[in-house]
């Protein structure tokens, strides 16, 4: 099975092609960027499919992150995944951006038997973080839903054992409970190659929907009309 995976949720754009017949990651690209994913993603997908020596007809499955992340960034990858599914008639599997970061952390835990679980904290701005915890074994099972919390609220969630902690807001969380967390400072952003490696184990579940975790900024408008005669 050939998998095309990509992510634009946070401050990066990445894409990868993975084959589960033992070849593993056949091509991947990762570029940090705060904006510009709407321009870069589609050419990048084209490049990784080319580099992998495949055509789009060879792709059997799409994998995409659904958020949390920036609203616009999250929609870019979702729009691309939905269009790919429509134009190629292939299934889409999804993971949270935080789970993909956790997958990256998991690759570095071999010599750390004291680490009981993995947590990821991505900067959500406005003094909050996007937060999710995962078990170390068992295919990185999520221990909670992705949430948006203050760093302090997030820090209080680790109850037993040492957590490996990554993501762009890892330090902001760890300083509230330094003894509980081992920070992987170099692991900040999701990478599509990790998502691609996860994808064979995820069940397709229809059209992917963005996971925003926050409502749209909008307030109902009142008091603009001039008084009308009441009966």
């Amino acid at each position, binding site marked *: 099975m050939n998998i095309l995976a990509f992510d634009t949720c946070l401050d990066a754009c990445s894409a990868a092609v993975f084959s589960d017949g033992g070849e593993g990651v056949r091509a991947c690209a990762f570029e940090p960027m705060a904006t510009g994913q*709407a*321009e*870069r*993603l*589609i*050419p990048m*997908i*084209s490049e990784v499919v080319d580099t992998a020596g495949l055509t*789009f007809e060879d792709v059997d499955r799409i994998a995409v992150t659904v958020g949390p992340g920036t*609203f*616009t960034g999250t*929609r*870019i990858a*979702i*729009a*691309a995944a*939905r*269009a*790919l*599914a*429509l*134009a*190629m008639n292939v299934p889409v599997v999804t993971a949270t951006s935080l789970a993909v970061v956790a997958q990256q952390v998991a690759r570095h835990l071999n010599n750390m038997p004291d680490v009981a679980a993995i947590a990821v904290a991505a900067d959500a701005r406005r003094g909050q973080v996007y937060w999710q915890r995962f078990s170390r074994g068992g295919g990185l099972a999520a221990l909670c839903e992705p949430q948006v919390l203050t760093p302090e609220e997030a820090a209080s969630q680790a109850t037993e054992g040492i957590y490996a902690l990554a993501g762009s807001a890892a330090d902001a969380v760890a300083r509230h409970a330094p003894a509980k967390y081992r920070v992987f400072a170099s692991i900040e952003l999701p990478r599509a190659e990790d998502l691609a490696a996860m994808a064979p184990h995820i069940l397709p579940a229809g*059209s992917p*929907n*963005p996971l*925003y975790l926050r409502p*749209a*900024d*909008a*307030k*109902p*408008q009142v008091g*603009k*009309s*001039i*008084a*009308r*005669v*009441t009966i």
Partner: protein
Amino acid sequence: MSPSEMAHETIILGIETSCDETAAAVVARDSAGRGRILSSIVRSQWDSHRPFGGVVPEIAARAHAECLDELIRDAMAEAGIGFERIDAVSAAAGPGLIGGLIVGVVTAKTIALVRGIPLVAVNHLEAHALTVGLTDGLDPPYLLLLVSGGHTQLLLVHGVDHYTRLGTTIDDALGEAFDKTAKLLGLPQPGGPSVEKAAKQGDASRFVMPRPMLGREEAHFSFAGLKTAVRQRALQHAPLSDNDVNDLCAGFEAAVLASVADRCGRAFDLAAEMLGEPVADFVVAGGVAANQALRQTLRDLAESRGSRFHVPPVELCGDNAAMIAWAGAERLARGLVSPLDAKVHPRWPLDATAPRAIGAGVKA
């Protein structure tokens, strides 16, 4: 149509997500440059925005992302066309709300890449401007009044990708003026239809409003002062009865029609100077072109100038994807295609050489 004739047709998928309508359409263009609509689906998001009294950009972007792929599927099914028959995909890349534009353009880029077909990034205003080519088979040059919720412009259309802006609004767009008037008077949004309906039952002579910009040299518009005048007159008579509201709407609409007719008349003169001959064809497009009183006023103006009058059918006046597909087909026929790293342009004037009108904001 015989298969050999069909073979000469180019089939374009169009995508529109620049404001609060999600739309997809399939349009065919034959080798003689004539078009026909195979399908055109528009899904209004208005119910999602209604509680907020106006379009909320983030709500719009979310709604586009949720349903665009379905709309494309439906439009293709209605056209009886599979992806193997699509020759190019076009999307509105601006002007408009950036979040929605990104959803539409990324979707179009993805389809273009996977199917190995050209992408045509289309200017939403150009799509409005070229619609009469699809509906009436009209070729440029022509004088165009483009009136919508976001834009109010007079353009001399020389041809695809070639426009001279003769006038623009220096403050509110005309559709916006209707919306704000409706809001002020407690009428439902969108304001165009509700103000028009109230105006029909009102007496335009009771509240005579100022006619903005009358006689000015440049063919610019201004509606902010008119809005203030409506507010002042309304406050004087508050609380307002239904009759008061109807009369205020009638007074407002009469002032709008007088101002628009005067500004368009000025544009006829400017266009004739540029063309070296009188304007033969006058076109009105955009959502406000659905207003019947405006249509009649402009039809009369065209007649008085010895010019033919054209207005697209109502369903093609508001935002739609058939016009995007058609503009895409017109550009494709001239080799004007876009790279897969094309940017969206929230602000994208049709005539980039036109100076900003004094006092004008981003809508100019």
